[in-house]
């Protein structure tokens, strides 16, 4: 168990969250935890998610690098999460590829 800092680029600007994580959580799990416990206004891809790196829909920029939120394990002490493209719809959700 460790507490990490997660900075998310929302439509209104960056917002910071402190999140308790455990081993084996993906960035998708972290986002889910933030939505559940701290901020139910956050938008990130979720509506038809495979969770298994198979659909390719959960793209997000993690500490500068575009990756799949479900495939990236949240091991860093600090995460900066940004939309993966410039065509942002809301928060981390972009026009779909």
């Amino acid at each position, binding site marked *: 168990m460790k507490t990490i800092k997660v900075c998310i680029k929302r439509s209104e600007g960056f917002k910071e969250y402190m999140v308790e994580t455990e081993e084996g959580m993906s960035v998708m799990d972290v986002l889910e935890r933030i939505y559940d416990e701290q901020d*139910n206004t956050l938008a990130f891809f*979720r509506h038809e*998610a495979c*969770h*298994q790196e198979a*659909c390719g829909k959960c793209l997000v920029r993690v500490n500068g690098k575009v990756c799949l939120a479900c495939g990236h394990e949240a091991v860093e002490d600090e995460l900066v999460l940004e939309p993966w493209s410039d065509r942002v*719809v*809301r928060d981390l959700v972009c026009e779909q590829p």
Partner: protein
Amino acid sequence: MRTITTDVLIVGSGGAGLRAAAAAADGGAKALIVCKGKVNRSGSTLLAGANVSADVMCDGRSMASMGIGIGDENDSKEKFYKDIILEGVWLNDRGLVKQYVENAPTVIREIVENNKNLHPKGDDREIGIPGSTIIDTYYKMIRERNVDVVEDSSLLDLLKASDGTVAGALFLDLIHGEIFAVNAKATVLATGGMHNCYSFTSGTTGLVGEGQAAAIRAGAEMIDMEMVTFCPGVITHPMKWRGSILPYIIHTNDQFRLKNADGEEFMAKHLPQSAVDLALHSEWNKMLLCYAMHKEVNQEGKGDAYGGVTFDLEFKDEEDEQAFLDHYPFLKTGTCNEMFRYIKDHGGIPVYGAAHYFDGGIFVDPSFATSLEGLFAAGECTGGTFGSNRVSAATTQMLVQGLEAGKSAAAYAAGAELKAFCPVCLEKAEKDALRPFEEGKEDPRKLKKKINEIVSAGAGVVRDEKGMTEALAALEAQDLSAYGVTVDTRAYNRSWMDWLESRSMLTCSKAILASSLMRKESRGVFIRSDYFYTDNDEYLVSTRYKDGRVRLEPVDQADVPVPAGRLGYIENIEDVIKRLSYS
């Protein structure tokens, strides 16, 4: 409101939706797919066989004719047909099984011919290929036929014409928040299972039974809604792999062990030796393993920290391990390899039974027409094909049914005119979808969790009268109007989606529980602790749910002899297995 017109509307783009769209186009219809996710990467189809090895099946003799070195000349369609009915413990709709068996070779041939470089492994009746390969085969087909596609859009309601015919559907573009309509001469539902009514599932997040719920709201008849298949080897932890069925895919007779929190094996405690053998050596493992796991966790209280048990692999020596890896080469690389290493390094991986496949669903006839004029359905959102237990492939089911439903819908559309929506019906559907912007303040996410808890407790692997009655009452007590959006925007509004999904979950869950309460016996995947026997005198019936009420309809017992009387649940399974052509 923006309205798109087409001949045949297909909702959903798993194997059933894609195959239906291609068939509709071949039938001369203008076809449009509207789907919740990505057209070629969604639904259970994508995850079939953990996207490494999904079985697709037909009879062994037809398989032998494919020229891929797999099959069994001594098998026949007749044997395959009878086996499916025995596996379903006599509840199968015979017409649907016939259609399945007859058309299975056609779809296997399509897959084989479209994947010349694929050298599928398999045995007498089945080949094993990744779910995405199945999708790619049929995605190519719809592109060649210029089928129109709208992605990231969720079905809100079916829309009827003034004469009651289904004339299309209302959708929400989830990304931008626009509500739009599709006006069609015929509509095919192919929305997959109701996985997310349960808290632990192996399906994608989009599978909540919205097609079934829309059909129920429109007055369609449902069949065998109580029949839910749970998959025993689904990862509960680590969180990033939660929901993956990889352990199930690699569970083999010799190396795999299931252990409780104390590290003890427990199968023999809950099942007689003959049933343990069945669970380990036959395709009937899903329900028997889930039953034993359920007993160990809920009755003995020996579950682990994640509410389940441990799946472990034990190898005699390095050679044994190497042979295992050679048998499952996908374990040598990528995430599958990470999972394999985790099992080795941690003395196993936590697993439990997850809601996995829905044997019941929308009632259809062998042309895949539903009880509503203008509405067809195919694949896992339908019911009846596998009766009370599916052993044969659901992948084959989605393809043969999609094929037929698309054909039927195109033929129907050719003889039909495009009917205008009944204005009241359209207005009501839109108003209903917008309720969370007008009504309650509570976060609908809470309601989803509550429904999950109620359904998982009341309609899980083992059920009883008290638990089901309480669960149904608890569902009836939920008040959608107390919940509303947490942000006011329409663009990618998760709370709006949660509200809409909760609405469907409530509808489907009530149907599951009401149907369960009517079956006072255990059969196939349906297990009751208070009626732990199979009753062929009273319950060779399907449950039919419509407008909130359930009736029992005798299942025509053609072709496969059925013994009269009652037999203990396990004894009955043993008896059925003896009758199979492959046992």
